């Protein structure tokens, strides 16, 4: 049932052909790199280039730390979030990335100070939400004016072609509600 839903989400939606990469540069700047197919308009919209945008991310205040919010993300993600089933359109993605201060968090993010360095537990959790494939999942969260995370809003899953889809997250997990006692 779950696989069917994900299949429907991933293949019935608009494709705007961009790969999303979470990157740390040599100078230790944090970037979100968008690799676009030339004919698509996402990169054009965001940085006025056809094939690639490198969006420098601002400081994610307190993200290297074990505060309550970071613990919540890295230690109980599946217990706290689920996909709403809505996928963002190209215009919505451009709008979000242009208008917001945001942070991207990948499965191997240096912001994860909760797992051992060799562990890919968190990556597996994100991958399972993406449908279990080799999807290079990436979280997108918005930042407050002071640079601290306000909320985790979207999960980006990639298909086999490396094309990313931006999925909306719900602040409630998927649950099964049992019937009242007979």
């Amino acid at each position: 049932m779950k696989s069917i839903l994900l299949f429907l989400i991933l293949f019935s939606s608009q494709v705007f052909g961009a790969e999303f990469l979470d990157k740390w540069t040599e100078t230790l700047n944090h970037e979100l790199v968008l690799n676009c197919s030339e004919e698509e308009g996402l990169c054009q919209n965001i940085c006025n280039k056809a094939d690639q945008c490198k969006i420098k991310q601002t400081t994610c205040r307190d993200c290297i730390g074990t505060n309550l919010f970071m613990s919540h993300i890295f230690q109980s993600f599946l217990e706290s979030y689920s996909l709403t089933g809505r996928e963002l359109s190209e215009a919505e993605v451009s709008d979000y990335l242009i208008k917001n201060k945001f942070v991207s968090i990948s499965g191997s993010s240096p912001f994860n100070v909760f797992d051992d360095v060799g562990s890919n537990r968190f990556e597996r959790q994100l991958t399972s939400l993406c449908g279990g494939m080799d999807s290079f999942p990436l979280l997108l969260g918005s930042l407050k004016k002071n640079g601290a995370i306000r909320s985790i809003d979207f999960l980006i899953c990639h298909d086999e072609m490396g094309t990313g889809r931006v999925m909306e997250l719900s602040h409630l997990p998927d649950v099964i509600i049992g019937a009242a006692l007979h």
Partner: protein
Amino acid sequence: MFREILITLLVSMAFSLNAFSEVDDIDDVEDQNYWRLTETSNHWLDLNRLRFTNRASCAKDSRRPTESTFILVDNLNLGRSLLRLSKRIGKNGEFTKNGVYRFRYTVTALTKLIAQELMHGELPLLPTGPESTFLPTYSNILKECAKEVGHCAQLDDYIRKIWETRKGQGHSNIDNFTGVQFLTKSPEPRTSCHYLKQFSPLEAHLYGTKPDVDTLEEIAKTVHKNGDYLTSCDDFNSQTDLKQAIYQLDLRFLNSEEWEKKGFHFWHSLKIYLSWAFRESDEAMQMAYPYGEFFKNIDLEESIYFFSNGCHSLELPECSRESLSINSLRFLAQSADRKELAQLDMFSYTPQGPSSDIVRNDRPDVNLDILDFAEFESGDAWASNFRENLERSRGFVKLKLSKAITSLNLVQEFLGVQKILNDLEKQKNRLISNGMNSEEDAIYRQELYYLCSEFRVAMDEKLSFLRKDLEFLRQQTTINSISTSLTNKDLNQLISYTSELSNAVINHCDSLEKSKIWSEPFIVDKKGLAPWYQEFARINQNVAPHDLSNDLVKHRVPLLTLKDKKNVICISGAHCARKSLSALIDISASLQYIEGLLNLSGKIKSPDLVNPYAERVACRAYDPWGKTKSTIFDFLQNIGMAAVSAYVPTPIYVDVKLANRKVISFNQMVKDGNVYFDPKFDKRKIQATLVADFGPLLSTPCMVTVSGDPNARPTGYLYLDGITTQACHQRENNNVNAYGPADVQSNDSNVTACVSCTISLVNIASTASTYNPAIRPLFFLLKGVVGLVSNLKDPHNFPRSWEVDPNRLYSSYRKFGFIPKSCARRIRDDKSCLKAYCETNIVETFESNFKKYVSDVTIIKGGKSKIWINGCDEPVLANIPYFGCATTKLQKKDFEIPSSCKHLFEAK
């Protein structure tokens, strides 16, 4: 005025009494012109004086700003993060190690830079408390910032403007800054920063009160080998542990009067500037290069702690939950195994709160190595223990809070009140119709019993211990913000839901009782009660709580399950309701110590770790002047009685004593989203005793005493008491109404009056005094003096302090090869103790100006005295006048450094 003179007199008498045995000369040391210990330490020790205090003095000092602080840097998270990053960008282990060192360097160097700029009057002070209103913009920003958790963007903008205009005159355009907000530049303000390799006698003031000769000698030996115990903050070769480090930052601000007034503002400002500058200033970017951009993401306030090196404080202690919970980190800094830690109030299901420690223990130890420094082989080992305890405790509270908010949110979102009630109703009907015979029914009966017991205790209109907490919770902005960030839902919504659920459950319980489902035969299996209930009701703690979930899940489909992980959230209506209640209790419990454990305010924490009297004085549980006041009161009373009895001879007299007020509990109140405590005292303030000495009148050796205090013996100082018989009337029986240990009152307070008759074996004195009016005043005078002397012998409760300059102490040690007994007093008074004052003058001036230890001195009055130092074959020459060598103020220019040794004096 008279009172102040008397206090000064008493304190100096107290000093004198303790110093009778010491002689203030050094003639017991054989005449000696050369220095015994010529091999000196090559490391000049730039530390502040060590201030030794007794209990009362330490308590008093908590209201004064410190000039020396420890800085604990916890970089474990940074290390983990750098390691992940290094793998991402293809760097090796050196990248991580250098990153950790660069972080430590940035923290310590930036702290020093800010301290220096504040001390030089280049950066303005950002006042704390009422004085913040002098700066209207700043004051308004603080009010706005109080509404949110964590860093405040408005404050950041404000600091940025100040930082950009520092060293200039532009501050007045930003706010109403005047000279009041600046420290006056003193002649030689300085800062020194040391990495602590090992705790040593250089922290002897944290290990004991008055330092004896042995202690002084140990300190001197440590100065001699100071390189083994500490080194400069940027000596990273010595810092092998990459997880944490502990540093000592000393300030010397010579305008001490101004420091007393502005020291707390200084530390408050330093922490605010540091938080901002670490992330935003160019200076920090340069110090942190090439890691600067990455470091901006660190939760700095979670990574560093300042705590005073002594009894003085960094911030004026308040009787607030934030202040008390931060101070409770003291328990985590001590050496304790996990089992001992688990016993702490902060880990219990229904904690009493951080104020309970004050009620339980109003006279804790102080200055007796209460942080267990001596139990660890290195500074890193101590810091590691503290960091690990802190990490574990943080993890515990975070998990508890996060789980509680999440599960309460899920039950409310997906089940609401109605679905739970439907299930409860069906459960009840099933039990009644089935006859309650099956194994499944037995479990349901138990579960319903638990449900009703737990909700009645927690939420019933009359019985509730939680209801008052809920109203309290609603007013706190902190928890609301946490709840919103985790669930997008205000905590008030979750509280309202639980209240609604409780009303429904309690009504349901009434109907269950009417249905007699727990009529005989029914035995409660107490193991299944919620852990918080078992703790609250003090049910046998040896039996581990047993969650019925596993038993229930065999019989039915759970009401709520997580889809992905198949985690059962709750099974039946009763189970879901109980889980909701437990979650609310967990939220309430987590909040008790949350400010201490988590970084909610966005401020660097500065707990009073070494001084447990900081909060006791702030909460009025200990008065440093209490003993002094009561001694004056006693003394004056006896003087008064002496005066009265000289004119009105009577066998009846009154003895009045000021009682020590004891805090028995605290009222809580919320102000601007913060919780403050107001102490409630036992009612006794004055103990009055009426004494009628019938001996001389009735020819019976009986003296009748009427008092509120069963221990009252007003004449006990003078009499050898005989046999006493006593009867007391009590106001009421011992019916104690208490919600917890904090509310239990001392039984003594119920005593209204005691009558005792002492068959005095030495009644003669009193008898004689009655018949001779000249003797009776003498009797009271003598009683007053004996009482005074006896009180002054109290080693703890009269403020006493001693100050030792480690370098002056070290010069005495080098001079004599040991610390002569006759030097102890002088050294404890922060003075040098050499053979001659002239020599003292030369050595002190030379050493303090050139930061080099003298190895020998040859005094040539009226000529050029010779000063020898290690590493230099020629002497430094000092121009000393023939007369007044001891009193002439020497200057740096009076010393001639030989050209062959100038390199030793060049700044590195």
